[in-house]
């Protein structure tokens, strides 16, 4: 049997890749019996959805203005650097 530390690590890994068959079976069994780990698994999905939305929000991306400014600085810089 897995303990919660092992199960939560496997559950986290399962978010990112397919687990080997027997590990997946052990995890499924644990999650069936352990409400805490089942809750944690749902919360990892919640974190993923929050991250996705956060990443798509404007907060975490360069604005069009900032992009333009940086691009201009790069162009000026490259011209200056030419021999």
């Amino acid at each position: 049997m897995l303990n919660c530390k092992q199960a939560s690590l496997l559950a986290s890994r399962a978010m990112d890749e397919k687990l080997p068959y027997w590990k997946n079976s052990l995890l499924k069994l644990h999650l069936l019996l352990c409400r805490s780990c089942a809750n944690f698994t749902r919360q990892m999905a919640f974190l993923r959805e929050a991250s996705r939305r956060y990443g798509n929000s404007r907060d975490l991306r360069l604005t069009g203005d900032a992009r333009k400014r940086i691009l201009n600085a790069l162009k000026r810089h490259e011209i200056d650097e030419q021999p």
Partner: protein
Amino acid sequence: MTTMNDGLNTQTWLDEHGDYLFSYALLRVKDTHVAEDLVQETLLAAVTARNTFSNQSTVRTWLTGILKHKLIDHFRRQGREIVIADLIDQNEDDHLDRFFEANGRWIEKPEAFPDPESAFQQKQFWKVFQDCLSGLKPRQAEVFLAKEIHGMSNEEICKHFSLNPTNVWVLMHRARLSLHKCLKIHWID
């Protein structure tokens, strides 16, 4: 994402890595304008130093390395002592015994969070979320950001951070545990 040998076409750096560098800087400095300036400084320095780029690393890894130095300069200017180890800590002393008993049981049992959709509607939630991300250990933050926000695959992450798959599983697990705990403390309770 292009990783290997996407050449030294400096024009594409901003398109391909600008958002990544920006989000990395923003979580460290928590100021949009400062983060934008740091991205600019990083790219300018990269153009100047482009001959030092070695094909052993990916462009993104190389640019992130330059950004880290820019961040350290920035913190120094602010009079904050920060050493490069604070940004690159390789072996983080973050034991799982913050979360689990010696027998592997939860110290604090995860409970069901209230309705996620209503959280997403609240400005306060996003503020807390950003603070929790900023509060992660640097290595965890980087890997979590790369994976969950920039959609890099485990394979790309291994290459970018020179990690093996087990490291990535462990870092992601810790990042998720820490974020979960932070949200519980600062948002739920």
